[in-house]
């Protein structure tokens, strides 16, 4: 890989994506052994700098770093000096002065990882910046699809939900189109930006039309806060029209897989029996997430400064 940072899928090439997925396969092997640890990044320090609450992603990165024998520090905003009015840049420079080699950053504003990557020597890994991207999620999703389906090119993949505000959706759209899949977006018109049509993805407003014969159904979490701003009138209405029920899932191919980045709103965007059912790969996404994040850190450590 050429860049010291992972800022987004937009910034990396298909070759980079392929390299990350291949390397992740190697790490997944390691995770299957008794000794789930390798000494490769021993002595390095990773800092989780999270300006937004998150347990699962932060824990995933933390564990990935530990498995690589890296030391980990967690820096959650409410417990740090940012609350006292320290600027973003000062916080980042402080973290660097503590010797961070990796800064895993989650922030509510788009573009913050890019700003920090310009200013810091450390490798910046974007763990989610506003409504921009969440690249490691897309990479683990691609890894999961590839593992289950043997490849990504030519697959029909439906992404359902609040596309407009979802960095998971955006990163997935960029990576899966780069890898040759055909994407369909399904959701209410208020949650799917018109501009999506300009980048070559299909836009559907009903599940019945959109899910027909797809290979992969990727459900997004519906965020309750959206309700208040006129995006959709109620969660009941949303669930009724765009929730994934067994009937709707049967419109997809018989061997279609169901994915969800988590955490799920059972009964709202996805029926419980599907989440626990045979077509769901949701838990494997979590395991794969660990391997992919190990791969990302491993590869970034090897980039010449």
């Amino acid at each position, binding site marked *: 890989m050429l860049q010291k940072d992972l800022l987004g899928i937009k910034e990396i090439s298909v070759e980079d994506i392929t390299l990350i997925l291949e390397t992740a396969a190697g790490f997944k092997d390691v995770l299957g052994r008794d000794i789930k640890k390798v000494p490769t990044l021993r002595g390095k320090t990773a800092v989780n700098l999270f300006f937004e609450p998150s347990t699962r992603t932060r824990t995933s990165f933390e564990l990935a770093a530990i498995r690589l024998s890296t030391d980990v520090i967690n820096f959650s905003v409410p417990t740090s000096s940012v609350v006292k009015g320290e600027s973003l840049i000062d916080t980042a420079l402080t973290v660097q002065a503590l010797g961070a080699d990796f800064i895993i950053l989650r922030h509510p504003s788009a573009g913050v990882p890019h700003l920090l990557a310009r200013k810091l020597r450390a490798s910046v890994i974007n763990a989610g910046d506003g409504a921009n991207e969440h690249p490691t999620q897309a990479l683990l999703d691609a890894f999961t699809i590839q593992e289950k389906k043997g490849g990504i090119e030519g697959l029909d993949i439906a992404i359902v939900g609040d596309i407009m505000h979802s960095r998971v959706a955006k990163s997935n759209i960029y990576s899966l189109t780069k890898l040759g899949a055909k994407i369909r977006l399904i959701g209410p018109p208020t949650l799917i930006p018109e501009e999506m049509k300009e980048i070559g993805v299909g836009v559907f407003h009903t599940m019945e039309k959109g899910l027909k014969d797809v290979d992969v159904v990727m459900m997004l979490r519906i965020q309750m806060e959206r309700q208040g701003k006129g995006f959709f009138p109620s969660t009941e209405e949303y669930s009724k029209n765009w929730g994934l029920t067994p009937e709707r899932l049967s419109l997809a191919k018989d061997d279609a897989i169901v994915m969800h980045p988590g955490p799920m709103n059972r009964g709202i965007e996805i029926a419980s029996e599907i989440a626990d059912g045979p077509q769901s790969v949701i838990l494997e996404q979590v395991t794969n997430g660990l391997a992919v994040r190990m791969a990302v850190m*491993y590869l970034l450590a090897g980039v010449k400064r």
Partner: protein
Amino acid sequence: MPKELLNKKDIDRALTRMAHEIIEKNKGIERVCLVGIQRGGVHLAKRLASNIRGIEKREMPVGSLDIAFYRDDLSIRKEQALVRKTDVPFEVTDLKIILVDDVLFTGRSIRAAMDALMDLGRPATIQLAVLIDRGHRELPIKADFVGKNIPTSMSENVEVQLEEDGLEDRVILEKIV
């Protein structure tokens, strides 16, 4: 212009001799396994196993070991260390493992291979078989079975080419520019 040091016949003879040596030193192949180090040692390990099968009329377990995650030179390597398959389909604990590699040079790859192997279990013994020993050790590592000793200078490179990779069987010496 690379210089050919060993041709196909030389390589076959060396591997035949090494197979005999392995059997002799270990008094048979009871509880002995071969593990080829990615990438150079994998095919050689298979060839040795095949030779040994011819002599002892018995199968012996063969595995391959990727050492990318155990290297000590991550930040100074020119290219990224690609990750390859580790396939050791047997328990290593209490077995006599013979690591196989194509060229023994500084010894660091072998050190990494031993660490990788130890994370898989607790072998009874670890021995080392290499086709070429080119000298210039940086760690106290010694091969138990050597195909050929070739003294080299630091400005030279030794490469083992094999049929399994689509090339002709030979060992060449190149000057590094």
